[in-house]
């Protein structure tokens, strides 16, 4: 019925992990309203392992589905493992994206990288 895979539609209809997080350990904010996509990604990290991830997204169906998927993918991963999650991996986990929507998976990757960078930066500042 749709240009999207069933998996994309499922994540769009029932997105996982929606919402802002209280006291996150890392936050990534990418995109801007002019280009039509904004993704905020929040991470909770314990002992180098991502224990929780949530998002808030302004964007098309694919943007919401990739946000949802990326939060699912990172949970339980170490920070290092999470750093190697590529946009292709997100798209593949969704059963593929239409070519014109691949940029949404790129945005998801960027949001994740930004959140992880933020986490690392905060770690650096934190007194050990």
């Amino acid at each position, binding site marked *: 019925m749709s240009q999207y895979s069933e998996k994309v539609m499922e994540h*769009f*209809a029932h997105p996982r992990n929606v919402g*802002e997080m209280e006291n996150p350990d890392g936050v990534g*904010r990418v995109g801007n*309203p002019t280009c039509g996509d*904004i993704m905020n990604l929040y991470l909770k990290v314990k002992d180098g392992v991502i224990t929780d991830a949530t998002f*808030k997204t302004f*964007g098309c*169906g694919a943007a919401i589905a990739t946000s949802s998927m990326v939060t699912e993918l990172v949970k339980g991963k170490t920070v290092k493992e999470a750093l190697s999650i590529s946009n292709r991996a997100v798209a593949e986990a969704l059963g593929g994206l239409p070519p014109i929507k691949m*940029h949404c998976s790129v945005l998801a990757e960027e949001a994740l990288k930004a959140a992880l960078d933020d986490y690392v930066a905060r770690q650096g500042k934190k007194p050990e």
Partner: protein
Amino acid sequence: MNPIYMDHAATTPTDQRVVEAMLPYFGEIYGNPSSLHGFGQEARAAVEAARAEIARFLGAKPTEIVFTSGGTESDNFAIKGTAWAKRKRGNHIITSAIEHHAVLESCRFLEKEGFRVTYLPVDGDGLVAPADVAGAITDQTILISIMHANNEIGTIQPIAEIGRIAKEKGIGFHTDAVQTFGHLPINVDELNIDLLSASAHKLYGPKGIGLLYIRKGTKLTPLMHGGDQENGRRASTQNVPGIVGFAKAAELAAASMHEEMARLTSLRDRLIRGLFERLDGIRLNGHPTRRLPNNINLSVESIEGEGIILSLDMMGIACSTGSACTSSSLEPSHCLLAIGLPHELSHGSIRFSLGKQTREGDIDAVLEALPQVVGRLRAMSPLYDQKNLKEREESR
């Protein structure tokens, strides 16, 4: 629940009576209208009867109607055909910033060929000012092309006045009437139209057939070179079933037009009113009254249009983000930017376009569904938070 189709501006279902009118021309009266024998002449008679029917509908002469493959071809033909035919007279074309892509892209192509194009701005309601048209005319101007009504925001342009200006200056006037042909009354003489594009699938006719009205005496280089069909103006074996279907659709449209205009206007306003009662942070795009009877175009703050479309689709309601042909594009609508919407709001626009089957119950279904959808998507949106936060801060 039966799915509710509210995307009649993108295309309409072909009326069953139109299909029935077409059917004999597939397997029975299948001749090529250019053929001398009986099979051909029978087909030709059907084509000429259709042409006469449609000409009557526009207040035109049958020889002024050229059948094409759709609105896009008609627009390309009118614009490029004028450019090639009149390039010795001048190289300047005037159009508006909110034309359909078929007009805009034809103009952009011509710019590469050395033509100069003025894209007139529109006001916040999407109206072109006739004075702007007059002001843009130079001694090089060979064509003014302003659409009758906009496909996205529904604004109806003052084309009678623009036509009068064109006529006074002796400049050809083209109007893209794809959204109005069969929906609003059109008389080419009263409106001073020299060239008019229409497409059958927008008025419950078949896809793949359109027309260009060409006022007698208007010079135009063919877009389709080849045989001498359509009086030498458009080569290619005529699409006989399509032409017959188009005429039938025009006949049906003529019979119910005024009634339907009133009915749709009332449904449209019911939907607009209802949505404003139920939702905050929305905006009606296009002119409040000078708009197509079937068009509702809204911007919804803080969320993106596609998400709304997909959500409504899952609830059995079909609408669109703007013109169908850019639904797959990432660009915000050129039309919404032209009326001054910020990018953010233009990304969040949706269009409901009503039609023959639309009933009050369908309107009510949208009034029920859209607030749910908007609520859900806003809950996911970082912009909605920010906005609320800002408002809360400001009210402190």
